[in-house]
């Protein structure tokens, strides 16, 4: 097994053009080894191509560490608004998350519910397809409908359609202040109702999560200090009917914990990530027979820690999808990491993979 770290897009393209066996596509490798095969890493494709704070745009090579990107943005009081999760704690992995890895997996955090996912902040990509051809799609401007949107398609494709070499991102101002309204001692039913009420309020909520262990629902608002103070008070008053409310300005570690599912760190079992309609979470949660649960996105994102080797998808009886985020290699290959699609969609996806990766060498078997 080889580890290949090309230094340029051209070198990467050459490797892919000459490859015949399976390639495990990696950025920083913080989500572990996805498939057997030679590792093709983008970690040496680094550097900022362009950053214009006044235009909210950043163009960066795929292997650039997320930490480097975030530091650069922080210096201008900006940020990646989609709040990408750091998988290292949950998966017990090491390495340095890269921006390309974040985009390839469409990794988003609690703010996804308000500002959108990684895919909603991605303006353009460069990638190399399975024949070794470099391709550009999208660009560096915020509105662009010129041709088909391969940008979205590549985001979340987990390397199956191409290896990302460069991404353009929309960045946003960092909020001056934040506050968290906690609703204490509520069951899931009440928590989802409370989160729904806050997300349906005019107060621009940027996070709505529920921790069943402490039976507390958390609602976040961000922005200018006076505005945050005003909106958090309004929310606390409106949510008082659901349970005792309190307002805290010390929210950073809390939301980082929600983002990274820190409640599951170091605990045994498989970890599943389930996306459903928020109100469906209430009926679904007990059916999952999980050892522990965490809820984000107003209830629409369920993190479940279950005993090893169980097919949790068989227990999900509502529309949505369940991804196996952490499990042994055996369980992963038996159950599949991604939710199988209905026949027609599976055929379309398979057709797309074959078009972009005719040799079938990009993370084979990971999807579809």
């Amino acid at each position, binding site marked *: 097994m080889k580890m290949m770290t090309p230094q340029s897009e051209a070198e990467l393209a050459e490797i892919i053009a000459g490859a015949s066996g399976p390639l495990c596509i990696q950025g920083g490798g913080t989500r572990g080894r996805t498939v057997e095969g030679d590792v093709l890493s983008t970690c040496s494709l680094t550097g900022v191509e362009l950053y214009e704070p006044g235009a909210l745009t950043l163009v960066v090579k795929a292997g650039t560490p997320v930490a480097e990107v975030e530091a650069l943005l922080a210096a201008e009081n900006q940020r990646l608004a989609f709040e990408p999760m750091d998988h290292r704690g949950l998966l017990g992995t090491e390495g340095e998350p890269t921006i390309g890895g974040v985009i390839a997996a469409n990794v988003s955090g609690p703010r996804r519910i308000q500002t959108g996912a990684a895919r909603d902040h991605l303006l353009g990509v460069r990638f190399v397809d399975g024949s070794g051809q470099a391709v550009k799609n999208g660009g560096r401007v915020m*509105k662009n409908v*010129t041709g088909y949107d391969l940008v979205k398609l590549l985001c979340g494709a987990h390397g199956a359609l191409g290896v990302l070499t460069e991404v353009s991102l929309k960045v946003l101002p960092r909020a001056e202040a934040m506050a968290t309204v906690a609703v204490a001692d509520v069951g899931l039913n009440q928590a989802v109702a409370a989160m729904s009420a806050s997300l349906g309020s005019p107060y621009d909520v940027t996070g709505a999560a529920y921790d069943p262990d402490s039976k507390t629902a958390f609602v976040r608002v961000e922005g200018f200090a006076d505005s945050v103070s005003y909106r958090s008070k309004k929310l606390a008053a409106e949510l008082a009917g659901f349970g005792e409310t309190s307002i805290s300005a010390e929210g950073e570690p809390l939301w980082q914990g929600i983002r990274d599912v820190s409640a599951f760190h170091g605990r045994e079992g498989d970890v599943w990530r389930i996306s459903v309609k928020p109100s469906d979470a209430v009926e679904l949660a007990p059916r999952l027979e999980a050892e522990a649960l965490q809820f984000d996105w107003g209830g629409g994102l369920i993190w479940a820690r279950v005993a090893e080797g169980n097919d949790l998808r068989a227990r999900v009886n509502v529309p949505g999808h369940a991804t196996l985020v952490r499990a042994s290699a055996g369980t992963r290959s038996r159950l599949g990491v991604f939710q199988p699609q209905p026949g027609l969609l599976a055929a379309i996806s398979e057709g797309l993979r074959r078009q972009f990766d005719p040799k079938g060498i990009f993370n084979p078997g990971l999807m579809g």
Partner: protein
Amino acid sequence: MQMPSPNPAILARKQALAARLLKALPPDAVIQDEMETRAYECDALTAYKCPPLLAVLPRTTQEVSDILRICHEEGVPVVPRGAGTSLAGGALPTADCVILGVARMNEVLETDYENRIIRVQTGRTNLSVSGAVEEEEFFYAPDPSSQLACAIAGNIAMNSGGAHCLKYGVTTNNLMGVTMVMMDGTVVEIGGAHLDAGELDLLGVICGSEGQLGVVTEATLRILRKPEGARPVLIGYDSNEVAGACVSDIIKAGVLPVAIEFMDRPCIEACEAFAKAGYPMCEALLIVEVEGSEEEILHQLGLIIDIARSHNPVELREAGDAEEAGRIWLGRKSAFGAMGQINDYMCLDGTIPVSSLPFVLRRIGEMSQEFGLDVANVFHAGDGNMHPLILFDANKPGDLETCEAFGAEILKLCVEAGGCLTGEHGVGIEKRDLMLHQYTAEDLEAQLKIKDVFDPKWLLNPAKVFPLSVTEGRRSMALAAE
């Protein structure tokens, strides 16, 4: 504009095809009379016209499926049509095509405030989606200027934007699921009330594919609670450069207005003559709108006004009440109508990096001299989406051609400045032949591969998006296979 020559074999089968469609559809759903099909000969890009072979107006997904299955079996091209408001010729027929209009499919299927979604048939107009949830103080965010008339189907096809997308995003950021009929008549469900795709993001590539991958009949859309209030401020400058610097400083300061609109002098003059909104006569006008509670609005406006003052505005006008706010928006909202009053015009929508705004405006001014046609600029400054309006006289021989040549040069300039050919209108036929200025043949090839998977016979919305030379091999192979 070059279009593929119609297939004589299809033209000869018109009666048989109509009869087959009539067996599957109610009698009033098939339009074959040449006087009546003429109503579908063009969209809002009226310079190009071609009556279709037939037009069909289904009411259900099942009827759409029947139509597409029949056309697929017969090898007949299909041009999907929403409300026909495309400025890019996205719904321009070919003589041998069936126009599939979804205008009769305008039902609201489900509203769910708890989960903040609405599910509609896609013939419903954009504004009436917001109308359906207005009572509960919700709205659908993307707001193209044509929102009174344009259909969700077309919004999805073109990934439409609007004035408020700096904060709320464009169609693709607000679309959660679709029911789509494939060219062979099969029906697929993608996405829904849950977030994100588990596998490949097919929804992401369908949105903005200009009706070439399938016909979307139903859509699940994200709805949002209305903000407590909104208010604009009007700022005038004596140069485009300074106005551009002001926009950049506002964004850098961490304020995210819901809209930043920019008008140049020719546009201000035309609007003033038409709407008499009382705009100051200056080189550049900005309308900046913020949202929130009264206190929040005042705070944000305070920050914006401080920044604006630091650039020495020639005019700074706050709206004291709703009536004054209305007056500030009046001129901008009537800009297109004002232009229509004085002249025929062509509206472009290239996008540029905000930082290259002064350079691009200066170049457009110089080119206006070279081509001998006036141009007025109105655009969404926060996101760099320009709308140059080139004025011409359709009755003057050669004027349209000069205008098109001028337009093409402006769009190339947008690409050279680091931007793109179209920010929210779509490529259609209008910008089709410029695609190789933005993308290499290899970049386009990657896009064609998508089409091969969804529509292997290349029957859906022919001759749009890609230069004909680029698609010729595929089209003739598909034809030979028939």
